[in-house]
């Protein structure tokens, strides 16, 4: 599925009129905010239980696939409350990210595809991971960051996954989360549109894993959440 820029702006406008912002302070469009609305899907654990903020371990990265069955995202419960942040893309577009959700506003989710050269967590290994507080990266010396060990880009999840070191110019796209009494839902993606390039550059790998590009691009109807360390036995740290 490809969305044109015009579609995006339209989606933003629709989001505004439908009151997309009412529950979670969803981002308001600023200068053509790159918000893409996707079907709302519940986040579930592998045992079928809904994911709720209180059921997440603090500073442990979880993986789920959204909005496509091949596009990984990180779900992290941070230590402290995370408020809304304005972010800027290399293109100059500015958007506002909602911050954390949950009672304590600590739960965040980002697309786990590095905006620099699109490395992403795979079953055999993950070059992207989260460095908890006081477990610093030996290379960059940073903690509380999502870091990519291909070209050493680091992103700050407390600031909307803004790049804080390395070659990446754009924040990791944020997954728009919604919480109600039944649990947490994903309902859109905000930030740089990297899916088109991802599907193009990883065509061979995705075909191998999913059978065809078309299958890799299927939208999910439910997202299963697992710890990164359960998803892959080889988390590359640097």
């Amino acid at each position, binding site marked *: 599925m490809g969305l044109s820029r015009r579609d995006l702006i339209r989606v933003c406008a629709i989001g505004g009129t439908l009151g997309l912002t009412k529950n979670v302070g969803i981002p308001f469009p600023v200068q053509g905010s790159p918000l893409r609305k996707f079907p709302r899907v519940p986040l579930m654990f592998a045992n079928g239980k809904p994911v709720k903020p209180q059921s997440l371990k603090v500073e442990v990265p979880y993986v789920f696939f959204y909005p496509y069955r091949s596009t990984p995202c990180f779900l992290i419960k941070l230590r402290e409350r995370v408020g809304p942040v304005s972010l800027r893309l290399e293109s100059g577009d500015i958007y506002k990210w909602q911050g954390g959700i949950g009672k304590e506003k600590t739960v965040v989710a980002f697309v786990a595809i590095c905006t620099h050269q699109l490395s992403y967590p795979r079953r055999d*290994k993950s070059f992207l991971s989260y460095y908890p507080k006081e477990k610093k990266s030996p290379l960059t010396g940073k903690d509380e960051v999502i870091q990519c*060990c291909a070209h050493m880009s680091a992103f700050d999840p407390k600031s909307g996954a803004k790049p804080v070191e390395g070659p990446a110019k754009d924040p990791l796209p944020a997954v728009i989360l919604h919480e109600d009494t039944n649990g947490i839902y994903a309902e859109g993606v905000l930030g740089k549109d990297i899916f088109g390039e991802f599907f193009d550059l990883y065509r061979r790998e995705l075909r191998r894993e999913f059978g065809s590009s078309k299958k890799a691009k299927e939208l999910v109807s439910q997202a299963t959440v697992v710890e990164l360390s359960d998803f892959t036995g080889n988390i590359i740290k*640097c």
Partner: protein
Amino acid sequence: MNTSRRDLLKAGVGSLFIATISSPISAFSMMPMHSGRMLPPSKVPRVVIVGGGWAGVTAAKHLKKELGDKVDVVLIEKRKIFMSCPISNVWLGGLVEMDFLLHDFQTPASKYGYHFINATVTGINRHKRRVMTTEGYINYDYLILAPGIRYNYEAWFGKDRDLARLCATKFPSAFIPGSEHIALKRKIENFEEGTFVLVVPPPPHRCPPAPYERAAMIAHVFKKNGIKGKLIILDPKKEIKPKGKGFGDAYKQLYGDIVEYVPNAKVKAVDPVKRVIKTTAGDFKFDDANLNPPHQAGDLAWLAGLVNKKTGWCDVDPLTLQSKLDPRVFVAGDSASVKGFPKSGDMAHNHTQNMLVKALAAIIRGKDPYSAVSAPTNTCYSMVNGKPKEAIVINVLYSIDRKKKAPKKKKVNVVNKRSSQLAESTFEWAKALYRDMFG
């Protein structure tokens, strides 16, 4: 008309014969080269890129990505296939297959919408803004020179080009990808006993850690093959730089019986016939060797008349990579001289994408090039162990001093503790950049 190689050779011999009895002009006219114009004139600014290495291929893609139909991009490269110099040491060590290094020029040209011309550049007329090639000529609005490096054998052999050729044949450097790498690999694999010498070129040279990584990979092969021999590293510097501790630890802990590191060994004379190198640290006889002469800007930079003869490199604006001698020419990759920028594949990719392309795109749009550029980074992994695969890494962050209009080092991150995880990252680093350049 299809002309076979044999026909061409016959025509060449015939023309040479005619030349001896008539005039050299008739001989030239018989050469199997095209002299007409290539491609119709462009309605939008045309950027011609000569040299399809890391910098040239990066420039072609990212200019199109930046400007789309507002620019016409032509990449000219003489080789039939792209072979990556980064990761070639790892291949020398037998840790990846050759196809990891090989890529085609056609797919990215077709995918990203630039012209690819497989031809050898024979002349550059900057006054006419014209590049002459074996396939014809082409005019440009802007020229990007990305010719990589040339070996400065003159520093060792003066004007004795025959001796230089002999040295290059018997002891190829393999810092320019291709046949030399294959020859060097055969040497390493066939070595059975005695002394193997590796000469580290004096700085600045292509990829500062590469000679040390190569030494580790050669030592790995010797160790794997149970060779009773020495690998002597002759380094003109007083110590290993960068990642000195990481390399030093690997040599000592993994290859203690094999590697002998000799600092302050500036080459005074090389005798490729008697197999002797005279250096400021003494004379060294060898059984086989990887002899690396000093590096300079690539041949095409000399052809264009843009090399500073004192340094051997091209003087450029350190933010835009624009030649200081010709504002219509930009120099990408190793031929450019920018203080603090190593001549690495990663740096070539980074400064081309973030500085040169952004600046040139701004100029074409009629905007200020200086405010368009962003600071690059440089990441260099070095494989130091083959079993298990283990690597070390340096990562340099730059900032831009807008007042001085120059980049400066902001932070240097180094991990000298070798690890398998960094070895995995080495491959991911390369795959991602190949993906970026070749689609």
